[in-house]
């Protein structure tokens, strides 16, 4: 019977072409959306964790509560000691001390007089230790477009866009004016070692400088301290459950409720609303899929009704020769499932081509993502990714929608009067 139905579907274009096209379009869009999200979300997680949140992030309780002010005086005062403890407890993780601070960058002229000043936000990380992996985590090796990587604690990297705005060249000396952890003024000269383009609009278009953490510690008078410690799983794959174990251990074993400087740990999704954002993206995908299913269902329902009218004679004949109504109904469902499978196979193939193009060429949304911030980073060029889900996700709307469509439209067969078949079939 399946072969019989398949022959009918393949030969009768008016029975199959429109429903197959509907399923094909719906599944192709679903697969493309899935591949798009499959590329964007991991990229966002990786970039944001590498640049800001880590897989687990430690701060002092007080710093966390006032984190938008970046209060250096509330930083972790013994970050290095804490890292030793964490290294011993979690050998499958790497821990990095980082400090974020802001200040005024003074750019002198050839006589050493102030030529320009601008506010900057600075990130200090271990850039010059022989075994440091920060250069990789911050993607600095690929991001330096002029000059070289820092070799000295007082070398800085400057965003190329800002350097061009203020005519700063590689090798120039600039002065960072800020305050120390104790609140006193700090003036520290840095040499511009290189200029960077991250390919992340939120960083490239802002005033960002990157320096070595030892230089920053001297400038800020915070020996051994840092504003945060980022923990990364060594396989660099974020896992919420594993991260929860780590953050729970820190919060249960290292936290002292009476100490405002006590460290607290946050998982990636607990930092900067990442969890809400990931939930939002999950909900978005669910809603999009539901909308596709609903639209396809309505279209295929109507298509099923039209087909029911067009195939009125066929159904009558089948009833006359002794096919049960229930059997006809089931064959209609089977037929719609076959249409769903055919449409889904072609739709998935087309969707995969779409995802492949997104993966290879991407879409430059740099201007749109320039103002995202607050620790959430996207690459300028958003890329899709062919994930295992792309191969099967289309079958959800592709099979459900035609099945539901036939489930509703096919019920008309039960209203057919066999008593008038002779008359109906002879008109």
């Amino acid at each position, binding site marked *: *019977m399946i072969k*019989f139905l398949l*022959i*009918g579907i393949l*030969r*009768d274009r008016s*029975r199959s072409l429109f429903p197959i096209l509907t399923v094909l379009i719906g599944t192709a869009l679903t697969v493309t959306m899935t591949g798009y999200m499959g590329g964007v979300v991991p990229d966002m997680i990786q970039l944001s964790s590498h640049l800001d949140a880590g897989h687990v992030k430690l701060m002092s309780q007080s710093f966390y509560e006032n984190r938008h002010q970046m209060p250096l005086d509330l930083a972790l005062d013994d970050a290095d000691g804490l890292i030793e403890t964490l290294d011993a407890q979690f050998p499958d993780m790497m821990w990095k001390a980082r400090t974020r601070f802001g200040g005024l960058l003074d750019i002198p002229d050839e006589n050493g007089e102030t030529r320009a000043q601008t506010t900057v936000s600075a990130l200090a990380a271990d850039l010059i230790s022989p075994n440091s992996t920060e250069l990789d985590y911050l993607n600095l090796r690929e991001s330096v477009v002029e000059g070289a990587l820092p070799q000295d604690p007082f070398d800085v990297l400057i965003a190329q866009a800002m350097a061009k705005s203020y005519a700063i060249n590689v090798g120039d000396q600039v002065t960072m004016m800020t305050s120390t952890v104790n609140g006193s003024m700090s003036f520290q000269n840095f040499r511009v070692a290189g200029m960077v383009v991250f390919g992340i609009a939120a960083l490239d278009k802002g005033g960002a400088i990157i320096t070595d953490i030892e230089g920053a510690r001297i400038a800020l008078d915070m020996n051994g301290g840092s504003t945060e410690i980022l923990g990364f799983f060594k396989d660099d794959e974020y896992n919420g459950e594993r991260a929860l174990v780590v953050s729970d251990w820190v919060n249960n074993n290292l936290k002292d409720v009476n100490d405002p400087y006590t460290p607290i740990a946050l998982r990636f999704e607990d930092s900067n609303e990442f969890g809400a954002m990931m939930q939002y993206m999950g909900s978005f995908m669910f809603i999009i899929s539901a909308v596709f299913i609903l639209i396809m269902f309505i279209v295929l329902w109507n298509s099923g009704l039209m087909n029911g009218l067009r195939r009125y*004679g*066929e159904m*009558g*004949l*089948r*009833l*006359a*020769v*002794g*096919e*049960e*109504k*229930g*059997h006809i109904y089931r064959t209609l469902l089977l037929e719609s499932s076959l249409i769903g499978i055919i449409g889904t196979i072609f739709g998935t193939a087309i969707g995969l081509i779409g995802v492949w193009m997104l993966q290879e060429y991407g879409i430059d949304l740099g201007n749109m993502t320039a103002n995202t911030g607050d620790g959430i980073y996207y690459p300028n060029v958003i890329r899709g990714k062919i994930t295992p889900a792309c191969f099967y996700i289309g079958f959800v709307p592709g099979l459900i929608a035609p099945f539901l469509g036939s489930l509703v439209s096919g019920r008309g067969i039960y209203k057919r009067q*066999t*008593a*008038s*078949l*002779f*008359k109906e*079939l*002879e*008109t």
Partner: protein
Amino acid sequence: MTAAKLIHTHDLVKTYPVADREFIALKNVNIDIGKGEFAGLVGPSGSGKTTLLNVIGSLDIPTSGSVSVLDHNIGALSHKQAAKLRNHHIGFIFQTYNLLPVYTVFENVEFPLLLLGKGTEERKKMVMDALDWLGLTEKAEMRPAQLSGGESQRVAIARAMVKKPALILADEPTANLDAKNSHHILKTMEKLNAELETTFLFATHDEKVMQYMKRIISLEDGEVVKDETK
């Protein structure tokens, strides 16, 4: 009822509600049709021929009285049982052939066997036998649109007889055919009736068709007014 009686009706009445009254389509019809008969229900339009075919074919149920086909009480059958009776024992031939246009001649004839759950090889043999019977072997792979009216009706006959039913009901089977094709079709049916002992019951008002009938049951206003065997 004896086994030889394929169809037995007793005081069969069929009425339909029309506006605020009942329209009487069949009035106390009492007929017996035995195995292997070649009989025709004749009469003008509205005489009740098609209604009687409907009831005998288990497409409809009597309002009162009883109808027995192959020892099945039509009035007591569920939809499923009625479908099963049609599927196994009754073939239908319509005025307009009603072939499935997207399927080949072979596939059209094969369809009732699919419903019976016959195996592939058995189906193939039965279909080819039926097509051979009807002289359609060379047309097996053609679509209905490629056939003449006479050929189409022969395919319809092949579809009706392929499962070797005990009873074939034919409603105006030659109405759309010219005299030559009508003759050919009726001769084919006569041959089937003679060689396979298939019982044929026609509904017709065509004088030419009546000449082939071995028994003519005349209906007028839902009543049997004459029942004569040649």
